[in-house]
């Protein structure tokens, strides 16, 4: 049974930490101001805009301790990761989830944060929020539907999303728990204790900056590790800033995906707004959604009875 952390109420505390890459404090200011305007209180972790002078927002212990403190703090109702980058692999096995298990709270982010979503889903079956992070609030983003979808998700509003159709879509409808995130991270987790089990679930994927051949290789890994054959449904998000080899790979991402799943018959949609290019709707992992892929429309709707 999936555990849903309590939804947020005005006056609740949202912590902002950076468990992976470095983020200057000023880049999170609009996010902080916006969360306060929404009626929440914001607790800034030491890893947001800390003294780090390298890639990471702090050394492993700093990042671990900051995240751990927010995880354990009974006054914090949600943890919003400031940004992704790289770094959770280095601390995931040292995070103590015992207090979180007793008192679940929302863990929010995407990209490298996929590791937290997958690990928590695989080991504890507690819902998390795959959603925009602090930088998404900048340059008018706070009013855009994507950051607004985070606000709605945190407040417990049921999501009802739609997206344009795509010629490769495969028609069908399914109701199942949602799982997924960044493809490179999901491939990187194969064989580890953080690997999600996708059987019977709606899987969503997105990625950025990858070579086409590498996307193909990662999909082979998912397929060969049994992660694509028994899906309930498949939601292909945004694959942006893709790179190609000097000698062209010869297939688009959409073609690569289509070829990998041609022997299965679950519903599939392409171009869903989840990813690194700003089109990034909040999605609750482990929570049950209904994916409807029809000839004229695509929708992903949180089921009304997903409380358990």
């Amino acid at each position: 049974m999936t555990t849903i952390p309590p939804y947020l109420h005005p006056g609740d505390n949202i912590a902002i930490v950076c468990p992976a890459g470095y983020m200057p404090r000023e880049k999170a200011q609009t996010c902080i101001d916006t969360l306060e305007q929404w009626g929440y209180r914001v607790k800034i972790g030491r890893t947001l805009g800390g003294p780090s002078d390298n890639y990471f927002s702090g050394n492993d212990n700093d990042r671990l301790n900051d995240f751990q403190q927010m995880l354990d703090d009974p006054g914090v109702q949600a943890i919003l990761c400031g940004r992704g980058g790289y770094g959770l692999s280095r601390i995931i096995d040292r995070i103590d989830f015992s207090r979180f298990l007793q008192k679940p709270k929302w863990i929010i982010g995407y990209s490298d944060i996929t590791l937290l979503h997958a690990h928590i889903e695989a080991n504890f079956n507690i819902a998390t929020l795959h959603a925009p992070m602090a930088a998404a609030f900048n340059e008018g983003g706070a009013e855009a539907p994507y950051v607004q979808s985070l606000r709605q998700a945190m407040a417990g509003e049921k999501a009802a999303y739609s997206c344009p159709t795509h010629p490769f879509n495969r028609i069908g409808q399914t109701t199942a728990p949602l799982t997924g995130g960044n493809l490179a991270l999901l491939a990187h987790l194969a064989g580890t204790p953080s690997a999600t089990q996708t059987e019977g679930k709606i899987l969503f994927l997105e990625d950025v900056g990858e070579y086409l051949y590498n996307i193909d290789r990662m999909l082979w890994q998912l397929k060969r590790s049994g992660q694509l054959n028994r899906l309930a449904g498949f939601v292909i998000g945004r694959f942006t800033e893709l790179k190609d080899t000097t000698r062209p790979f010869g297939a688009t991402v959409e073609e690569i995906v289509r070829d990998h799943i041609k022997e299965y018959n679950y519903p599939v949609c392409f171009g869903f707004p989840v990813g690194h290019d700003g089109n990034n709707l909040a999605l609750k992992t482990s929570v049950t959604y209904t994916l409807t892929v029809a000839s004229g429309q695509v929708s992903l709707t949180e089921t009304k009875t997903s409380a358990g």
Partner: protein
Amino acid sequence: MLAVSGIAPGLFQADRFPHVRETKGKSPQPLLIPPYLKTGDTIGITCPAGDITQKEIQPAIQQIESWGFKTKAGNTVGKKDFIYGGADAERLADFQQMLDDPEVKAILCARGGYGAVHIIDQLNFSPLLQTPKWIIGFSDITVLLCHIYSNLHIASIHSKMCNSFPDDWAKAEPVQVASILSIRQALSGEKMQYTAPARQQNRPGSSDGQLIGGNLKTIESIAGTSSDIDTAGKILFVEDTGEYLYSIDRMFWHLQRTGKLDRLAGLVVGGFKIKPDDPGEEFGRTVYDIVTERVKPYNYPVCFDFPVGHQKENYALKYGIPHTLLVTPGQVSLTEKTTTP
């Protein structure tokens, strides 16, 4: 074991991750060593991954024939389907024919690139079990070497391929010549011995184990699949090219988190050609730092800058065959054991 805190016992039951340490508890399967080659034997050349032209394999054919072997180029040589040496079905059929052909005693992959994973699950390896033969290559061919070792327990050769034979033998650098000639030595059944530079980051020690490994990214990309490797008790070698330091760090974490570092006999770190950090994203750790940090909890020997990888100095390693790794403050050697079990 993985350091996991705060998790109720029983959550990480082994049967949830059957691909991790799948051979744990089983008695070791005997290693099959293909017959070494004799003068007049035939080496097949095929492209299971990237493409190569007829012209590009000529230096390899001339050299191999000068060693007294015959060559048989498959019909994927000269084929091109975007980045591949022919369509999946063509590469599959060509490799299968090499496996099935009793005249072919060794299969030399013409080059790496990408694509072996497309055909691996469709190959019928039963002829190879009946009549083991040497499979030769590296880089993307790591998929084949790992798969064959894990599933069939047949030794193979990790080495340069056709695209690395020098056009002009007289002008080639000595390490390139030596690297190519080591393929002949390995195929002919010579006992192999290599040395590597002494590095202050090396960890001294001596150990015996079967030698397995390959391209680090490729090893990661087959984790969780039927081609995955169990490294317990093995000497593991890894190399890579064109990866960011953060990505190399992440891959070493992956090795650790999939249980591939904790019970090694030894670790051999080959060449790592680094992709420079993007400006403002300086990783701040070298490959030495990354590896040293990951192997700190263990006490097996570790050496760096071993001559295996995408650089010119890349000697043929007999994959799966027991070796002795000796790391002292002044020297490093990797020596094939004289009695194979």
